[in-house]
Structures are given as structure tokens and as C-alpha cells.
């Protein structure tokens, strides 16, 4: 096969990242928003692992990095859900449109 | 890393740092005094502001007056960022060095002393402040740190940091303690100076990433000694890079194989762009003719003690920056634009004088008078010779003292009469003989009476300008008639004639009279014996001669 696997993995990762980004930018439900962000993180992780195998000097460092990244993703998901719950308790909605506390009064 | 061999390192290594940070001591003490103890706050602030004077005096006394080089130099690596860049196919380590560098030479030394002096005198004048003393004095001391820093900074980043450090306290000082339209004045101050700072910042970054370039190591044989490309913000190095023909030749040789010789060596048009950027940036501060309106508001709205500092020192930062950065980096551009600078100077001079003549408000009159006097500084710069530059520096000092004295008087007058309008005042000699006499002295100094400091600077600027622009000099000389006209109109309308306000008033108290007398003493000292300043100044300008000369070749 003449196919360059690194390029292939990177392309997959780019597509997934773009889909995640689109979701993050358009979805109104905050849970979906969180899911989209997870997707973007996953795309990045895929990059790291791909380089870990096909990079100029392959090593395990890329995988290590992925593991840390997953750990942080987990933390992020937990905090995200917590914020969502707190928000829901106040506004009784999970609609991102109605999150406009940052606006200048 | 370049050649700094011309600097002398003194036995007291951190004297300038101590000088610049000395107001911090006052801030610390003030922080622990309850804000209700007004008297104690005032006393502490005044005493704290005397400390910089002492240190500045010590620096002055220990300054080697026969050497024009930077003295009391302190230089440390502040931040350093490394990365690798490819020149051609060769990876070369790059390093960006931001320095913490302080130093004084004959040009900055008088300004440093002036700053310490005027700041302390402004503290005396601040006894007339009526509210929120604690914050006020802390802000004043922060302002003083910034000003001292600007005049001693020897690296562009540090210069910029201190330059900005003066902005914020000034904003609050105008906005909280000013008169009726204080907020508008503060906003305008911030918008304009912010704009100037943005331009300055842009210019500084541009200069650091281009002209700040030097290289060490062996460029021919990389294996023996890895070459490292440095970017520095150290002012002498940059000035050297831009103007020392040897340095330029070396850099060209090094960069040529990589095809980069145009990237780092500034092209003529780039130099022009930078020069104009700096001119505008400092011109706003100075202020130069079309950019002057913001300072009118500041002059008429801010409390007198703040205007003392503003008019006395902050404006000089623009002039000093233009001299230290603009003219020393781009002498050829300065040379070629001299005619325009001179025209700008004359416009400033006459425009300010005409406008001042039409004012009814003493503060506005003095504001326009400042614009007019800043014209003289521009004329000195436009002269492009040693005596012209000296005239400009003398004018900075002289105007600093005179306007500080004037606003001190304005503050005292306003305190007693509640107005500074010329049509409401008159015959003050009767009720306030001391203040009136001082006002007359300040006026005479302002209109350039020999024996007082204003004359020396005007004379030198005119002599300098005459070399290349005799016609403009003749026009500028006519400006001194206009100056006399508006100064006399202002001063005499207040002090002469029938007494307009008949309420009984007390003449200046000791705490007011003292700074007035001190400022007058310095005005007279410089007027009678200008060599106190001209000695070191002359030496320092000689140090500049190596590029002054090469730009003046044939002239």
C-alpha cells in the first residue's frame, strides 16, 4: 500500500474535530455541547497516538500524553455536568441560548 | 553581545534601582496609616517624596561630570525566550532578551533630578487636596516611580512599562480629584495617551524584532562555535546596530548567505515609517500641534498639584522619548525631516501663543503656553546640532520648573479666590503680594527673561536652529514677542489694576511658600549659571557625536 497511514489518521482526526467543532458551535443543548467538546478532545488524542506510532521518532510519550488528556477530559466532563446541574436548578433549562450571564448589563 | 565597554559601572551597583523604587517606601508606610488621619498622610507623603530627591542629589553629586557616558548602569536579564529558526536550511538558536537596564547620562540626569524635585513640590502643593488623601498620595507616589523609571530606563521594554505606569495613576488623579468635567478630561487623557502608547508599543516591537538583532558565535564554521541570533531591547545596542557602520557591515555579511539581509537591516522606508510612528507616539505626549487638545482639558480640569506634575514632567517624557529613541535611532530621518520638524515647532510656538492670548481662563492660557513652549523643544530637535539639542533639554528642565511654579501658584490662587478667570481677578498684588510677586517671576521666566531659566533654552534653541533654517528662526524669534504679550496679559490682569475681589485673604503659608521659593531658586540658578546642567549635557551630546557627525557630513 502506498497510502501514508499518518496522513490518513490525521485526516480522520481533522474530520472528527471539525464535526465536533460544528456541534459545539451550533447545538443548543448543553449536554450535546459537552459531548461535542469531548469529540474534539478525542480527535486530538487520535493525533497524539498517531504521531506516537508514525512520527519521526516513535515512542510512548504520545500515548502518555493521551492518557493525561483523557484524565483531564474526565475531570472536565464531571465539572461540566456539575455546572449544568447548577445552571438547571436556577433557570430550569439546559438551553445554551439562555446562558448569557457574561453579557454587559 | 555588542560592545558596552563605554559604560562605567560604579561601586554602588543598585543606586538607580533604589532611586526609582524609593517612592515604594512611602507607599508602604502610607498603606498602614488609616485614611482618616489626613495630616499624617500629608506629612508622610511629603517626607517620602524627599527621599528620591536625596538619592537623586546623591547621584548628581557622584556623577562624573566630565564623562558623557551612561553611568550607574544596572543591567540584568529580565526575560529570555529561546526558539529555533531556520535561516536558509540552517537551524539557528534564536534568543529574545528583554533587559532590566537602568542608567543615566547627562541628558537624563537633569530630568531625573527635575522629576524628584517637582514631584516633591507637588506633594507640598497637595496640602490643598480635600478628599481621599490616602489613595491620592499613593497614586502620586506610583506616578513618581513611573516618571523616574522613564528617565532612567535603558531598555525599550522597561521604558514602555514605566511609560505606561504613569498613565493609570494619572487617569485616576484627574478623574477623582479634578474639577467639574473631570471624568471627561480623564477619559480623553486615557484615549489619547492610550493611542500614543499603542503606536509606541507597535514601534518598539518592530524595532526589537528587527534592529535589536545581533549574532554571536562563529557564522562561518558552525561546528566550531554555534552561532546564536539575539534580539535585544537594550537601547544602546539598538542605537549602535542602527547607526554604527561597522555593526551594519558585520550584520550584512552574516545575513547575506541566508538571503535575509533586508529582513533585519531596516530599509529606508521602514526607518521612515518607524520614525514617523515614534514622532506621532511621542508627539501626542509632547503635545505636538494637532494632538494637543487632550492636554488642554487636563490642564483645566485636574487639581493644580497634579497639573504641576503633568505639565512639569509628563510632557517632558514625550520630548525625552523622542530624543532618546526617535532621534538617536533614526538620526538620518531626523536630519532629513528637520525642516518639517522646525515648521511643526514654529507652528506649535505661534499657534500656542495666539491661542493663549485669546484665553480668559488662566489654566487654559498656561496650557496653550505649554504648547507654545514645547514648540521650542521641537525647534531644538530640528536644529540637529549639539547646541540645538542642548536647548531642547534645557527647555524641558526650564519649562518643567516654570510650569510647576505656575500651577503651584494657580492652586494657591484658586484656593483663595475660587476662580482663575482673568476677567474676575485683578489687583492681587494688594491682597496677595507674595503670590503676585512669584507669579510675576514665573511669568518673566516664561517669557524668557535673561537671568531666569527660560532664556537660556530659547537662546540655545534659536542659535542651533539658525544654522540651517535662518528664515524659520526669524519667524520663531517673533514668537517671543507673542509670548511676552500673552504672559503679560495673563499675569498683569491678575496682579495689576484695581482689586477685584475685596474679601480679606491670607498670603501664602509657609508650606506653600517653601516650594515656590525652591522652584524659583532653581529657575534663577539655571538662568544665572547654566553650566550646572550644560557640563554633563555637553559631554553626553559629544558621545552622540559619532552618529551626529556622520549624518552631518557635508553640513
Amino acid at each position, binding site marked *: 500500500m502506498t497510502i501514508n497511514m499518518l496522513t490518513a489518521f490525521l485526516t480522520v482526526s481533522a474530520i472528527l474535530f471539525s464535526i465536533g467543532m460544528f456541534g459545539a458551535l451550533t447545538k443548543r443543548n448543553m449536554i450535546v455541547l459537552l459531548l461535542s467538546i469531548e469529540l474534539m478532545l478525542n480527535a486530538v488524542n487520535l493525533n497524539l497516538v498517531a504521531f506516537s506510532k508514525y512520527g519521526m521518532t516513535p515512542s510512548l510519550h504520545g500515548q502518555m500524553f493521551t492518557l493525561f488528556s483523557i484524565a483531564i477530559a474526565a475531570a472536565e466532563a464531571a465539572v461540566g455536568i456539575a455546572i449544568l446541574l447548577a445552571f438547571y436548578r436556577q433557570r430550569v433549562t439546559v438551553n445554551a441560548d439562555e446562558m448569557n450571564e457574561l453579557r454587559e448589563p | 553581545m555588542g560592545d558596552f565597554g563605554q559604560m562605567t559601572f560604579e561601586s554602588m551597583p543598585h543606586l538607580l534601582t533604589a532611586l526609582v523604587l524609593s517612592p515604594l517606601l512611602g507607599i508602604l508606610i502610607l498603606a498602614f496609616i488609616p485614611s482618616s488621619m489626613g495630616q499624617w498622610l500629608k506629612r508622610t507623603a511629603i517626607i517620602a517624596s524627599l527621599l528620591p530627591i536625596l538619592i537623586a542629589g546623591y547621584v548628581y553629586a557622584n556623577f562624573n561630570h566630565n564623562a558623557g557616558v551612561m553611568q550607574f548602569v544596572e543591567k540584568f536579564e529580565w526575560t529570555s525566550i529561546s526558539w529555533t529558526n*531556520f535561516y536558509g536550511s540552517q537551524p539557528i538558536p534564536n534568543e529574545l532578551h528583554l533587559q532590566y537596564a537602568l542608567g543615566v547620562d547627562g541628558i537624563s540626569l537633569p530630568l531625573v533630578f527635575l522629576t524628584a524635585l517637582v514631584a516633591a513640590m507637588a506633594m507640598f502643593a497637595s496640602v490643598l487636596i480635600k478628599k481621599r488623601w490616602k489613595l491620592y498620595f499613593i497614586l502620586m507616589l506610583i506616578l513618581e516611580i513611573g516618571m523616574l523609571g522613564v528617565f532612567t530606563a535603558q531598555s525599550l521594554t522597561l521604558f514602555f512599562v514605566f511609560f505606561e505606569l504613569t498613565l493609570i495613576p494619572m487617569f485616576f488623579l484627574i478623574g477623582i480629584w479634578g474639577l467639574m468635567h473631570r471624568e471627561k478630561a480623564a477619559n480623553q487623557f486615557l484615549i489619547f495617551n492610550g493611542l500614543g502608547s499603542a503606536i509606541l508599543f507597535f514601534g518598539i516591537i518592530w524595532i526589537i524584532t528587527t534592529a535589536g538583532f545581533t549574532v554571536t558565535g562563529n557564522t562561518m564554521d558552525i561546528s566550531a562555535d554555534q552561532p546564536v541570533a539575539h534580539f535585544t531591547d537594550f537601547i544602546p545596542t539598538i542605537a549602535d546596530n542602527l547607526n554604527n557602520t561597522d555593526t551594519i557591515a558585520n550584520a550584512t555579511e552574516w545575513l547575506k548567505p541566508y538571503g535575509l539581509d533586508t529582513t533585519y537591516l531596516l530599509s529606508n522606508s521602514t526607518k521612515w515609517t518607524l520614525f514617523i510612528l515614534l514622532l506621532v507616539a511621542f508627539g501626542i505626549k509632547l503635545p505636538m500641534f494637532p494632538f494637543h487638545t487632550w492636554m488642554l482639558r487636563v490642564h483645566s480640569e485636574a487639581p493644580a498639584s497634579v497639573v504641576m506634575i503633568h505639565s512639569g514632567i509628563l510632557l517632558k517624557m514625550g520630548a525625552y522619548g523622542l530624543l532618546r529613541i526617535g532621534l538617536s535611532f533614526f538620526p538620518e530621518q531626523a536630519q532629513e525631516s528637520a525642516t518639517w520638524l522646525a515648521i511643526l515647532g514654529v507652528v506649535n510656538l505661534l499657534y500656542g501663543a495666539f491661542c493663549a492670548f485669546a484665553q480668559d481662563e488662566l489654566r487654559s492660557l498656561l496650557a496653550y503656553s505649554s504648547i507654545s513652549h514645547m514648540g521650542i523643544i521641537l525647534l531644538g530637535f530640528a536644529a540637529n*546640532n549639539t547646541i540645538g539639542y*542642548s536647548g531642547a533639554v534645557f527647555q524641558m528642565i526650564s519649562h518643567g520648573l516654570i510650569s510647576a511654579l505656575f500651577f503651584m501658584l494657580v492652586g494657591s490662587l484658586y484656593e483663595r479666590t475660587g476662580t482663575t478667570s482673568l476677567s474676575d481677578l485683578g489687583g492681587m498684588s494688594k491682597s496677595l503680594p507674595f503670590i503676585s510677586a512669584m507669579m510675576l517671576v514665573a511669568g518673566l521666566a516664561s517669557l524668557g527673561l535673561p*537671568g531666569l531659566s527660560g532664556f537660556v533654552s530659547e537662546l*540655545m534653541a534659536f542659535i542651533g536652529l539658525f544654522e540651517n533654517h535662518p528664515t524659520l528662526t526669524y519667524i520663531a524669534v517673533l514668537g517671543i514677542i507673542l509670548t511676552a504679550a500673552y504672559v503679560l496679559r495673563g499675569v*498683569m490682569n491678575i496682579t495689576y489694576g484695581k482689586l477685584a475681589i475685596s474679601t480679606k485673604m491670607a498670603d501664602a503659608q509657609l508650606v506653600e511658600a517653601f516650594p515656590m521659593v525652591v522652584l524659583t531658586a532653581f529657575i534663577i540658578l539655571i538662568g544665572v549659571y547654566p*553650566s550646572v546642567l550644560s557640563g554633563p549635557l555637553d559631554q553626553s551630546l559629544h558621545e552622540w557625536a559619532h552618529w551626529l557627525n556622520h549624518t552631518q557630513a557635508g553640513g
Partner: protein
Amino acid sequence: MGTYSQYAWLVPLFPLLGFIIVLAAGRLVQRIGGPINVLLSIASFVVAALIGWERLTPGIENYVWNDWTWLKIGDFNITLGFEINNLNALMLLIVTLVSMLVQLYSIGYMAEDDRKHVFFSYIALFTFSMLGVVMSENLIELYIFWELVGVCSFLLVGFWYEKLEAKKAAQKAFLVTRVGDTGLLAGILLLAWNMPGHALDFNSIFNAINAGDLSSGVITTAAILIFIGAVGKSGQFPLHTWLPDAMEGPTPISALIHAATMVAAGVYLVARSFDLFVASPTAMLTVAIIGGFTAIFAATIGLAQYDIKRILAYSTVSQLGYMMMGLGVSTTFAAGMFHLYTHAFFKALLFLGAGSVIHAVHTQDIREMGGLSKHMKITTWTFAIGTLALSGVPPFAGFWSKDLILLEAYHHQPVLFVVALVAAFFTALYMSRLFFLVFTGKARKPAHPHESPAVMTIPLIILAILSVVAGFVNLPGSEKFSEWLTGVAPEEATSYVPMIASTIVALLGISIGAVFYWRPKFSAENVKKTFLPVFTVLNNKYYIDELYQKTIQVPYDLLAAFIDTFDKYVVQGAVSLIQYIVNFVGNITAKTQNGQLQNYALVLVFGLIILAAVVIWMGGGAEVWAISGK
């Protein structure tokens, strides 16, 4: 070398000391400030006299000391120092003597003023500055003291600061002389860059002219610019307007500053830089014409004034014009300086006499005086001597000096000779009118005039004696004074034509005055009615003030107002526009900050895309990748 000249710095030092003492002590010396200053002036006069006596030694060298570097920048080295030569030794004597007498007189004249200590400190400062002008060794030093003298004049004219007229007069005095000063400054600048080594001392200028280092264009321009300075200070046409107004100051000041010393500084300046003028015929002609015109111009105005001091002021302007003309028409400065020297005594005498009169009757209008000779014997006699001296009646001092000028004019500029003769006639006429109106006839207003105290009359007597004898040092045929002053013997043969002509003219003027005002054979009122338009023009000083008002002051005010308006609306408007734009953009962009994070993120992504596109388009990134790829 133990000469007195090397101690010449003592001469100005005494008045400076007096100034500092009185200024510092303030009210403490309100009473004794005057006597202190008089004593110091006497000391100063003694030193000046010793120097003058020493200068009489034939063949004595000029003494120059200029070791004090005042300012050194680059190749400019401005020194302060002093030079003693015959010319300024003479001036030292005149200044110290008149100043001493005037201060003595002032003790009496100002006795009732509350701020007399201030007055004396100003006079001391003035004396110091004037001596500085006289002793200056280079042009910049001269300019420094020149300006100081001007400011002292300003302070003293405006001494009674509550009077509106005094305020206006002081302002005018300062501004009008400043116009002249700018000329002087410009001349100095011109010379500074054209002189070899930027030297500005008089000896170097003299040498440079002799060596041909200065082009004739530069010499003419510089000479005329310096002359503009002299015009301003000496009240020559067209900058004469300040001098009559300056009479608002106390009368001793008018005597000292506006008659004897400061206004003569212009003449002295021309004499001091005479080398420049001699080298340029154009400049000489200018000086002569301006001088001659001023002489006759001011004399005619003097005919139609009623204020005693103003008449004397116009007389001063006229006489200064005479001096200028004397400098302009001759080849040495002897004639002009000789007249300056005699004029200093008799004009000071006249002013002090006028002061004595004013002191007695408390008015300055001559129509309200009359018959004072009965009450004020000393004043009358001394005033009469002054009048005769000024009118140029032999053998009084004024005759000899005026004769010398007329002689020079007669030889070199016949037209100006005629002009000068006419001016001399008018001088005699208005002086006799003044004298007879004030001292003879009946008192026109009830008053109780009394003779002034001795402290005032003694200076009058001394000056009167000097007005008689001062001229004898330079009699025609044995012109010792001219020779001593200039170092060259006068070459022209004495001619009796101008001498006789001027005597006739003077006597004629006095007699006409006498028949109108002393023993009225004709009514002056009739003449006045006949020539009413002429009289009105003269009385209004040819409307010069009004002309300046209309052509300079009004346009200036308008221009200032216009520029101010321009600044307020156009420049500040532009600034407000910037402010408005900033606010507008701020408001627009604030709308995008609606608190919705997704919008923020969208903008962020969009920006990222643009940045990435730019980087890729510019090839910056690709280059790095390409390098690292290989």
C-alpha cells in the same frame, strides 16, 4: 598690573548688593532702604570715577576680562566678562552719577509711598543691569543685561500697579521694546553663525570686519538688525510710542531710565558696535535718516502737549533721534556720544525739576500751573538752566554737543542738517513754552506750592552745574573729548556756520515762546485756532497710537480669537470626532458581547481561520514544514 579697571566688577556689584539686601529684608528696611542704596551708589560712583580718572592716562590699554564660561555647548563658548575702554568708562560715570543723584532725590520724592523699599530695590536692580549693559564684553552678555534693563523699566513704569494707565503703559513699554529686542537677538544669531569661531565679543567682531571675514550683506543685515534693537530701546520712530506712555511711572524713574540712561542704551549700543555700522554705508544711512526723522517728528509733537512729563518725554525722543543722527552722519561715534553725555545731565535735571514741580502742585497739566517761580526759587533756576541747555543756547552744555552733531551733518548730509536745525528750533520753542507757562505768570489754579526739601534740591543743583560745565570738555577747535573717546583726532575743520545757525534758531525759538507765553503779545489760543487741524494732529501724536491700535492690536486680537475658535471647533472637533468614532465602534462591538459563549467561539474560530489562511497564503508555515521535511 594694579589698575582700577580690574576692579570694575565692583561697580555693578554694589547696586546688586543693594537690590539683594533690600529685597531680602523687605519691609524691615522700608525706611532705610533708600539711604542704604544711596550709600552703595556712592561707593559705586567712586569706583567708576577712579576708573574714569585712570582712563585719562594717555595710551592706556583697554582692560578685558572674560574668563567666566557661562555656557559651553559644543563649539559654542559663551563667556561673561567685562571690558573697560574709554567709551564705557564714560558711560559708567554717567550711569553711576545720575543713578546716585536720582536715588538721593527719590528719598525725598517717594517719602510718603508705602512701598518705597520695593522702589529702591528696583532702582538698584536697574542700576546693576544698566552697568552690566555698559560693561558687557560680548553681544550675548549685552543682550542679557539689555533685557534685564527692559524688565526693570517695565517694573518701575508699572510701579503704581493699581493705576490702569500704569498697567497699560508698563505692558506697552515691555512689548514695544521687545519688538526691538527680537531684532537685536536676530542680529546676534546672524553674527553667531557668521563669525569665525562663533565669537561674539566686540573686539572679535572688529577684527573680523577688518580681516574681511564677514560679507558685506551679513554686515549690513546684522547692523540693521542691531539697530532695530536700538530703535526699540531708544524710542526711535516707529517704536517710540512706549516712551511717552512710560511717564506713568514715578518721576525719578522718568529721569533715570527714560531720559538719562536706559533709553540712551540704544545709542550706546550703536556706538559700541560702531565698527559694524561704519562698514556698511546702508546701515549708516538708515541710522541717520531714522534719527533725523525722529528728531523733528517728536519735536513737533512736543509743541502741542499739555502734560509736563510728556513734553519732556517727546523732547527725549527727539534728542535721542539727534544722537542717532549724530552717529549716522559722522565717521566716529564722538558726536552722538557727546550729546548723550550732556543730554543725560540736563534731561535728568529737567525731569527731576518737573518732579519737584509735580511734588509741589500735584498735577502734571501745565495749563493748571503758573507762577511757580515765586515759590520755588531753586527749582526755577535749575529748570531754567536745563531749558537753556536743551535749547542749545551757548555756552550751556547742550549747545556744544548739538553743535558737534550739526557740524557733522553739515559736512556729510546737508538735508539732515536742515532737518536738525528745524528740530532745534522746535525744541527751543516747546521748552520756552513749557518754562514760561509753568514758572511765570499767574497761578491758574489755587494751590500752595512749596519748595522741595534739600534732599531733592541738592541733586538739582549738582545737575544744573553739570549742565553748564559739561560741554566745555569738547570745545570746537580743541576737541579733547572726541579724541579721548574715539582715539582719533577729528579731521573736519571747524565751521562756524552750524554754530551761528543753531544759536540763532535757539534764540528765535525762545523768543517766540516768550512773546506768546511770558509777556503775551499774541494769544497762543488764536494761533491754535488758526491751525486747529494741525494742532489736533500734533496733540494726538500724529495718531500713531491709534494707527497701531487699528493695524496691529485689533488684527492681532482678531487673529488670536480666530485661531482660538479654530482650535475650539476645528481641531477639538476633529478630536471629538475621533472620540466619537471610538465610542461608536465600542458600542457596535459591545452588541456582539451578548453573553452567548457560542457566538464568542464562532468569532474565535473565524479569526483562527483567517489567521491560518494568511499564514498559509504567505507561505510562512509551508517553508518551515518544507525545511523540516528534508
